[in-house]
């Protein structure tokens, strides 16, 4: 989707990963507006740097979460939400009313830890090792005494289950 020149494909990429980004940012920042602005900047930056995404290095969700994490660090350091990519892309700030803020807040409260805890232990361990500890597939395979292919399968099934669980949360 990131390699495509069709803007709608980027829209699909956004739809697929916005839940993960919001639930990553939600517990780490205070204020629904900040979550929303950082989400906008994350995807604007993902679009700007889409040429740098290499599927061989990991799935797109991990790549976009690293962007979110770096923006979060940058924003804390600069004491403001960075928004250069959004501005360069020409996406104007979106004004949100109270009801929308409430909705953003609800989405931000999706607890990824709870989602991971609900997964089979082998899948959550594979996901944590891959994306939190940033271990490579061969490294995880060596630690878990199984093949790389098995690890990849656990990660991919775990992500699919996690995505479904996130969508099912109120």
């Amino acid at each position, binding site marked *: 989707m990131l390699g495509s020149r069709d803007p709608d494909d980027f829209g699909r990429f956004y739809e697929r990963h916005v839940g993960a980004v919001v639930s990553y940012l939600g517990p780490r920042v205070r204020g629904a507006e900040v979550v929303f602005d950082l989400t906008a900047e994350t995807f604007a930056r993902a679009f700007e740097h889409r040429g740098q995404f290499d599927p061989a290095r990991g799935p797109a969700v991990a790549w976009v979460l690293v962007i979110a994490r770096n923006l979060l660090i940058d924003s804390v350091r600069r004491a403001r939400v960075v928004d250069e990519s959004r501005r360069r892309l020409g996406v104007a700030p979106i004004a949100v009313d109270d009801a929308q803020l409430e*909705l953003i807040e609800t989405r931000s409260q999706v607890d990824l830890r709870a989602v991971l805890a609900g997964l089979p232990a082998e899948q959550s361990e594979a996901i944590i090792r891959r994306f939190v500890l940033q271990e490579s597939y061969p490294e995880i395979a060596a630690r878990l005494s199984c093949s790389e292919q098995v690890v990849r399968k656990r990660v991919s099934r775990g992500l699919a289950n996690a995505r479904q669980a996130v969508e099912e949360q109120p």
Partner: protein
Amino acid sequence: MIDPFDELRDHLVLAITHLERRPARTSRWMRIRSHPLAVTLIALVFAATATAGVISITAERSAPLAGQVPRQAGPGLPHAWGLDGGEHYRITLWPVLQGGVSGVCMMITFEGPNGMGSGTCGAPYPTHSMPYLAGGRIAYPNGTISKGGALEYFLTGPSVASVRIGAHLIVTPRSEPGLPAGDHAVVFYLPAGSPEIDPPWFPAQQLSLPHGAKTLSVVAVGRNGAPITVDQGARQFRLPARFWERPEKPPSGACALAAPPSYYAYRGTTAIRLEPESDVEGAALTSCLSVDYNVAGTTLTAAALVNARSPTSAPPALFGASPVAGQPGVVNREEDAGLKSGRLIAFTGRRDGNAWIVVEGGSGLAERIAAVRALHVARIRVSG
């Protein structure tokens, strides 16, 4: 109620659609010249006493802004966003155009089988209380640099003679073309297995290092040989600025540009007050305003950059830009920042009184030259 996330998706898709329809920029792709990572190693071995053991300190000159990462694959496995070793790297800097900001955009790209890049905009210029211009950072699991090593980079201000990295490495900053006048580059390689650096411009509590992880301290040493005390709590200089967009009228800020009627200004950011940045060390530029114009179907951004330390004095050089042949007073910078992203740094500038009028975007150099000649500084009002 409209779901704000749906609204955001629509805004993104719309912006991308407009972007894809913009006329292609005439780009001049410059190939990156690769240099071996030229580090001059002078191993200094001090034997204090026969019983005190040996302390070895390596002093090296900073590597250049473009070169090749050593092929020194260490043990273990590569980090997902780390280096493999042997990549050609390039560090590019350019001034921030966004109104109200006094800072620099910095990008590093690594060309290799797994090319990657990262960048940030808005890093403040070195000041007396924080004589560094922050570079990038990759967080490693366990706080230890993984296979392939790490290339660390940042700039230092004119007061810095050397930088101590941990207990055993001293790096001498390097002067390079394309940097803000007076600032120097500090680029060095840390092999796999090294602890991460603990950058003073980045408060420790935000580093997110694992508990107990060792780090390498970064200490700037002044021309008198004494360490420079930094103030991590120093407020980052930023002018109060307002973003506006049509149909809203531009606010009456500290600066204004005069444009011909064919230039339709549709949004921008204007500094409401313009104050000198007294703590800045070297040559620094502050953007007093930035305006997006639509000119006969193409869009371009214009900014007025002033001398950060003294906005009523002549501005320092527009770093990285060179004179354009046959266009007196006009400077230009146009280059590929690397990788396949197609990201092109392209801006053109002209001095108008005590400001640089800088234009980026448009359909190419000719249009940018026409724009910097058509636009004029109508107001620079310094507060206080």
